[in-house]
């Protein structure tokens, strides 16, 4: 059969060209050499501000001790908690800590007091967060100056330094949230990108459940990033699927242990299940906790007594920036998608803080969210400024808080006459807890039955000698396995009560009556240390007479 000779071949490339790449980023939007320098500067600044005096300030918190204790249990006993795990939090956070401790040669004793290993991880996590925050702001605002400012505030805010040094699930949760935002901000139109962002959000959820309050902001950013793509159905579905997968594994874990549902499906809050714990019951209980009950404090109290005192600047500026972002973006939603998205993130978390039973450290995730808002707002305001002017303005804005004697870098001493380095870079608060443990080791036999706070729990299990009979006071009062099977709620079965700072308040708040009775009616103070408003004690219980 003949070929058709007379036809004309259209002029085309032999190989079809791939579609043009997404519009290249603007000069300002690209990271570039200057951007790399600013990013490195930001990370190093974060390592210094968060790492300097890390092991000495602030005081080890009970919650830090709890997460270290649970990581210890994972490594030493292959269990999620040394006590009855009642699904108060999902476990990814302390599994991460356990993984970190496992790869450190000296494990829990690598940096002295065991909580320090966790704190070292927190500093690395912070450095990671700085990288992510910087890049998220830069990608969304197109401004390296805005990214630098956001990262700088995140690094030096005393509120951030105070809480982000602590071994808290919230800090690990923030990391995953920022990973999710960082992936979303790639805007490459791929399904795996949406999926990666979803998976990160799922990890955030099983690190600390309060990430759920970031869903509106996250969801909006996701929606806007995929709505115009032809693969939006896949992207949206895979985001949800990836976010739900870790949560489903957590639920399955509970089911495998037969601890998903309460016995007889009884969700009555007035009669907690006595025989076995239940994930869904705990979630129901937490949803129904009100600010007037439980061990938490009201939002307004913490705001005035703690958070504003630590750093009012970032709280006020961040709130103002969030409001400005919402106002500016609601006028131009299409163009200002990221501003509305990060505004919703901060609003969502703020809603949680005002509605929930609070602990002091619950504010920790708010700081990077406010920094995000400040960064994007600043990027919007300076969008049309000359680069040199913006750079100069950014340098001045960064220098301002440092020069003020209100705790960013320096603060007045107690007499108000001398400028000193701020507390977080100077005070050796944890020395007191080290002294307390030292005294125990030198004066109390290892087989003694101790009631302690969680901050020194791992120290007494891992050091030399070990104290296998030291139990958390929370568990001695509330966990039937400890309260009824070890101590039998009887002061005769206790040799010492080791009091952390403000532990007496906790004993009263939680109605730990039999322990109070042991201290007040049969106890004798054998060691005490007071420094400022921090007071530690050791009470010997006279149970032999």
């Amino acid at each position, binding site marked *: *059969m003949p070929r*058709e000779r007379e036809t004309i071949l259209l002029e085309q490339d032999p*190989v079809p060209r791939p579609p043009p790449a997404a519009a290249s980023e603007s000069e300002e939007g690209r990271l570039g050499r200057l951007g790399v320098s600013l990013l490195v500067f930001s990370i190093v600044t974060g390592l210094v501000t968060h790492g300097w005096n890390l092991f000495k300030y602030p005081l080890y918190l009970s919650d830090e001790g709890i997460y270290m204790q649970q990581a210890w249990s994972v490594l030493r006993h292959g269990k999620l908690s040394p006590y009855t795990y009642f699904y108060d939090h999902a476990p990814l956070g302390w599994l991460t800590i356990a993984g970190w401790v496992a790869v450190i040669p000296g494990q829990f004793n690598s940096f002295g007091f065991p909580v320090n290993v966790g704190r070292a991880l927190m500093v690395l996590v912070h450095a990671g967060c700085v990288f992510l925050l910087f890049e998220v702001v830069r990608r969304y605002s197109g401004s390296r100056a805005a990214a630098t400012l956001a990262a700088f505030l995140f690094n030096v805010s005393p509120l951030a330094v105070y809480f982000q040094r602590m071994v808290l699930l919230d800090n690990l949760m923030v990391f995953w949230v920022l990973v999710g935002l960082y992936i979303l901000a790639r805007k490459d139109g*791929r399904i795996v990108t949406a999926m990666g962002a979803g998976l990160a959000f799922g990890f955030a959820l099983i690190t600390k459940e309060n990430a759920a309050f970031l869903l509106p902001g996250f969801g909006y950013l996701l929606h806007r990033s995929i709505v115009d793509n032809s693969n939006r159905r*896949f992207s949206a579905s895979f985001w949800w699927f990836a976010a739900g997968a870790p949560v489903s*594994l957590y639920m399955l*874990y509970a089911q495998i242990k037969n601890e998903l549902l309460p016995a007889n499906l009884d969700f009555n809050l007035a009669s907690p299940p006595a025989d076995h714990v239940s994930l869904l019951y705990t979630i129901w209980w937490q949803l129904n906790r009100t600010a007037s009950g439980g061990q938490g404090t009201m939002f307004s109290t913490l705001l005035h007594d703690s958070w504003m005192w630590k750093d009012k600047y970032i709280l006020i500026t961040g709130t103002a920036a969030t409001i400005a972002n919402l106002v500016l973006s609601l006028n131009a939603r299409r163009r200002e998608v990221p501003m509305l998205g990060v505004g919703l993130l901060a609003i969502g978390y703020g809603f949680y803080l005002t509605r929930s039973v609070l602990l002091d450290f619950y504010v920790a995730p708010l700081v990077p969210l406010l920094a995000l808002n400040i960064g994007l707002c600043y990027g919007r305001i300076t969008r049309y400024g000359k680069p040199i002017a913006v750079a100069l303005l950014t340098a001045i804005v960064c220098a301002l808080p440092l020069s003020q004697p209100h705790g960013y870098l320096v603060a007045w001493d107690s007499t108000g006459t001398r400028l000193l380095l701020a507390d977080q870079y100077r005070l050796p608060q944890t020395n007191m807890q080290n002294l307390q443990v030292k005294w125990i080791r030198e004066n109390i036999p290892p087989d003694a039955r101790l009631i302690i706070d969680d901050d020194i729990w791992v120290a007494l299990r891992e050091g030399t000698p070990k104290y296998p009979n030291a139990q958390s006071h929370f568990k001695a009062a509330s966990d039937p396995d400890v309260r009824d099977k070890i101590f039998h709620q009887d002061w005769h079965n206790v040799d010492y009560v080791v009091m952390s700072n403000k532990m007496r308040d906790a004993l009263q708040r939680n109605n730990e009556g039999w322990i109070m009775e042991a201290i007040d009616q049969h106890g004798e103070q054998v060691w005490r240390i007071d420094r400022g408003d921090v007071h530690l004690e050791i009470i010997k219980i006279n149970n032999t007479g």
Partner: protein
Amino acid sequence: MEHILLAAIALVSLMLTIQAAHVLYLMIYTWDQPAADTLARVPDVRAGPQLSFTAIVPARHEEEVIQQTIDRVARTDYPARLVQIIVVCSADDTGTIERAAATISRLNAAGRDNVQLVVFSDEPINKPHGLNAALVHSQADVVTIFDAEDEIHPEIFSIVNTIMVTERVHVVQAGVQLMNYESNWYSTFNVLEYFFWFRSRLHYQAKAGAIPLGGNTIFFARDLLERIGGWDEKCLTEDADIGLRVCAMGERVRVVYDHRYVTKEETPPTLTHFIKQRTRWSQGFMQTLKKGTWKELPTRKQRWLAWYTLAFPYAQALLGLYLPVAVLTAFVLRAPVPVALLSWLPVLLLAAHFVTQVIGLYEFTEAHGLRATPRTVIVMAVGWMPYQMVLAYAAMRALKRQLGGVGDWEKTAHVGAHRTAEAEEVTSRAA
């Protein structure tokens, strides 16, 4: 003993998870890669007719549909002098021969002399033998195959002519699509399998250089076919086999899927036929794997992908056995927590596959101007596990036949369920 069992469950779970995740990625490949998606489309600008085509139509017991098919191929939008049509039947299939001969006579009477009938009487009686019998009569630049039930697009020759001329490729696989997605409970899944296979996965396999080709709407340069000696008559999936042989020669295979120009087909009419068809495919892959063509591929990555694709029926058989174990492990057996969690991962991935299928349904119906209804999704949800079990059963059946040395051809029946009156009318107008 218990430890060995648990270790086996953990290992199988892990392998199935990785495998399922990879398959999932291949299913969404072109949606995930915007560049691949663009490349998959048919070029908007067409080259003038330059290449000549031989369209082979292998038919066996296709009395019901053969006449329409011949008419369709004869009435494409391409110069008749550049198209040669060969209908090929075995001598014992008198019914099909009679119908085909009648149509050819009618066309001859209308002045179309480019259609011929080739009858072979030697063994084996199967598709690859028929194709080889027809190949020796081919005189054109390009050889293609259309199955008897195919509803081809009138512009298909023009499209392939453009691609082959402008991109200088010698093998083009164009899209094939089952259409009757609401005929019965398994047809939706079957339709979507084709959708994901031709719309996405084949593009990945072509790019990687290890592609099991489809059975029709595949276009080869004739000299290439002659050089590789035609189709393997002993293989139940001669299409997959020839694809790998072509890749082993270093030929680039171009895949194109544009919903406007796909070749439309139907799902097997009954579950029994469906299982037979699936058994044949699974066993064909097993045969091709055993034959070892994949070992001739030049790079390790190509060999790995080919091996992995051909070994899939084994994984499918395993999955059928595994699913009840996974559910039992998670909910009934007291396996250690990490093992139980690990055994859950493939189930999770299976759920992801289901989600993907549902989205695929909406993508498919939207592309073809159809409408997906929640009812179909509910039927899918109910039929999902049974469908997996049917696939697993077919894979196990194939395994049994393969181990037992049974290699005969179980043919799929066609009733023309995909041919709607409306579609016929459109085609007539186009002709």
